[in-house]
């Protein structure tokens, strides 16, 4: 099939299958999946600028489906999602400006690559340590191993003493989030979203691999709710990114629409699967994702080829 906007010939089945895989990851972990979509589009000869913009457009569609499904399961904190969207958009702009500054300094690729490797490895190692410790202590697991219902969403974490200390910071205005069952300073929420946004603008994609763990460990949001709320927040921030990229001529909406046909089914499978796993197990399964991201960056550094 010929896509005139990006001037590329791509098999629509290939696009639908890529969308399907990303849909499963998105529905289950609450991530955008740009670390797969970007290289997958590049592999078919789509220019890098189109790969980035088109991926964002596809993320909007996939996240709408997954967030809608998560909302039906009671996994979305709308209030938290709205507050976070502001911080993410501001952070994404700062991240983009940081990239521009590094471009002017002439060492953007090296700095971004090293930062990405450190961040990805850091998240993977920390989540591996925390989820294994929680699972070993048996605190985060239900007796049957299968989890259903609202009670199961109140999962525990080996990091919860630190989270509780963060929640005790009484900096006005304090926000009550009944859905997540927490009361926390608005500034903490905005800071977490802002940092996620900076990484999104700096490293590309939706930065769900930073935001989802931050929501669990820093804000104390239960894992299932963090996944659903992250998706809802991605809808807002990725829509902003899509419009911005479309105006700059970086979006082939036809490719995004075809990819999205596969993502719809994948996202639904991912969302249903979260019902059968406890929070620490979801966090443990999350570990390979940032490692894949790190492997792609290392490959790019070593070979000089951009995937």
């Amino acid at each position: 099939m010929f896509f005139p906007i990006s001037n590329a010939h791509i098999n629509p089945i290939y696009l639908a299958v890529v969308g399907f895989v990303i849909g499963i990851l998105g529905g289950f972990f609450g991530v955008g999946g740009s670390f797969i979509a970007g290289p997958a589009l590049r592999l078919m000869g789509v220019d890098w600028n189109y790969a980035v913009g088109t991926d964002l457009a596809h993320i909007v569609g996939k996240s709408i489906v997954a967030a809608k499904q998560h909302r039906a399961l009671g996994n979305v904190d709308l209030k938290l999602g709205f507050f976070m969207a502001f911080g993410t958009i501001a952070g994404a702009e700062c991240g983009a400006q940081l990239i521009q500054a590094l471009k002017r300094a002439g060492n953007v690729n090296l700095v971004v690559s090293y930062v990405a490797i450190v961040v990805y490895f850091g998240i993977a190692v920390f989540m591996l340590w925390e989820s294994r410790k929680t699972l070993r202590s048996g605190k985060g697991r239900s007796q049957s191993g299968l989890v259903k219902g609202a009670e199961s969403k109140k999962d525990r974490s080996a990091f919860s003493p630190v989270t509780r200390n963060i929640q005790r910071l009484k900096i006005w205005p304090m926000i009550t989030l009944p859905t997540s069952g927490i009361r926390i300073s608005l500034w903490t929420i905005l800071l977490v979203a802002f940092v996620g946004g900076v990484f999104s603008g700096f490293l590309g994609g939706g930065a769900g691999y930073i935001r989802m763990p931050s929501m669990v460990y820093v804000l104390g949001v239960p894992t299932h709710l963090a996944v659903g709320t992250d998706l809802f927040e991605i809808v807002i921030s990725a829509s902003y990114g899509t419009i911005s990229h479309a105006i700059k001529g970086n979006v082939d909406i036809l490719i995004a629409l075809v990819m999205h046909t596969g993502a719809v089914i994948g996202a639904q499978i991912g969302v249903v699967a979260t019902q059968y796993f406890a929070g620490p197990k979801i966090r443990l399964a999350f570990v390979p994702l940032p490692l894949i991201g790190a492997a792609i960056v290392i490959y790019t550094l070593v070979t000089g080829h951009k995937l």
Partner: protein
Amino acid sequence: MKKDAAKNLRAFAIELAVYAVLVTCYFFLVLHLLGDWLYHLETRHRYTYAAVAILLIAGQAVALDTVTTLLFRLLRRRWR
């Protein structure tokens, strides 16, 4: 429990097959026709293109989600 899972799996497989047929028709009837118009918009009216792009992807998300949910419900009821 096992019986229920098998029924769900069967319903899902049929849903996938029906969905694949619908999506193939959609590729050829809608996306193929939209191609030239979107290309024209992208090259000459960027702001309109940006608005149309976001509306298309959001609209498709809602429409396909409704289709798959209805299909799944219909098939589950039929196999029960």
